[in-house]
């Protein structure tokens, strides 16, 4: 199923506290956690978002590690693994 960058940005902005970040100015290839100033609890919330919106369970850390590198890798990860 096609997943756009805008889809990912929308889901993240709805579920994480990103008030200090202008999500539209974050490029697809920018390091995700530095750019969005995310921390451990945000990482947990993203895992919740993946499960809730896309039925994706993070059970392979090697795979997930790469997925969380940038917005684009996250988008690709969602697109490849989503079940809904």
């Amino acid at each position: 199923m096609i997943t756009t960058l805008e889809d990912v940005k929308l889901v993240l902005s709805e579920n994480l506290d990103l008030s200090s970040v202008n999500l539209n100015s974050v490029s697809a290839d920018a390091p995700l956690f530095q750019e969005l100033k995310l921390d451990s609890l945000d990482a947990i919330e993203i895992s919740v978002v993946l499960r809730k919106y896309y039925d994706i369970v993070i059970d392979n850390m090697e795979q997930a590690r790469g997925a969380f590198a940038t917005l684009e890798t996250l988008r690709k990860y969602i697109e490849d693994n989503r079940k809904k």
Partner: protein
Amino acid sequence: MEKNWTGKSKSNPFLQFLLRFSVKIGGAELAYFFLLFVCLIYTLLPSVLKSASFYLKRRFPQDNFFKRLARAYKLNFTFGRVLIDRTVYGIKGDIKVRVSKEDMKKYSSLAEERGLILLTSHCGAWQMAMPAFNLAEFGLSKFEKFVLYKKTEGDIDKHSFELSGEESPVNFIDPAQWDGGALSIISALQRKSIVCIMGDRIFGSGANSARVDFLGGKIDIPLMPYRIAASCGVPVIIVFFPYKSKAAVDPEVEGVFHIKDKGAQIQNYYEDAQVFADALSKFTKKYPYQFFNYFNIWRQE
């Protein structure tokens, strides 16, 4: 709160060598004998006494200097015995974690269902039970085991598997990552693994911590374990490992907790964090010389 601990041993290579040498020629008993004197030297060092006093002043606020000195000696001596036992019995794989069959079955079935978080603390014989993580006797040997643990580079304290050259019986998750190891923990739990977390230690900036009551003051402890448990629907077992006798550890389980998912707001988990702090407080009442956080964990109000 910025972290104010280093994780680095306060010991030095010569004293470590002395204890290892005495273990080699005379076993644990000779090492205990040497420890009587080594520990005295340590306790008299102002920096060591100061480190021990952060806790002792809270636990025994009425003590005068000499009484506190005596208690610091007892505290350090107990810690030394744990480290000797870890070395002597850990290398040989002789440490037994004694749990009743009934409890084994209970924990095993909990882990089978959704994985399990073991929440413990730097107290008692955790160095014997947890870094060797000899959980075979805990009824959990068939599960993949992970520990959130930051091994300090250059630390001269060695775990038993490091000393024996064996492969580690557990996988370590480094908390010094952008996510504090959260994604690795979640990933492990999704595979129904067991993850052990020190509930009394903050990594990183500590922004996601709860300020809880502990021994008459406020301390900050991490909230991540509770949020992960809630979001993954994984039970949490609060367990401590009091040091009672050599080569054996009798875990004391404070309870099995099913943390309700209260959403992303971290303040919703303060109560859960307080449960852990209360359990730890209870432990220090029962085992006053087995709390081994040698730094000031209390907030300056």
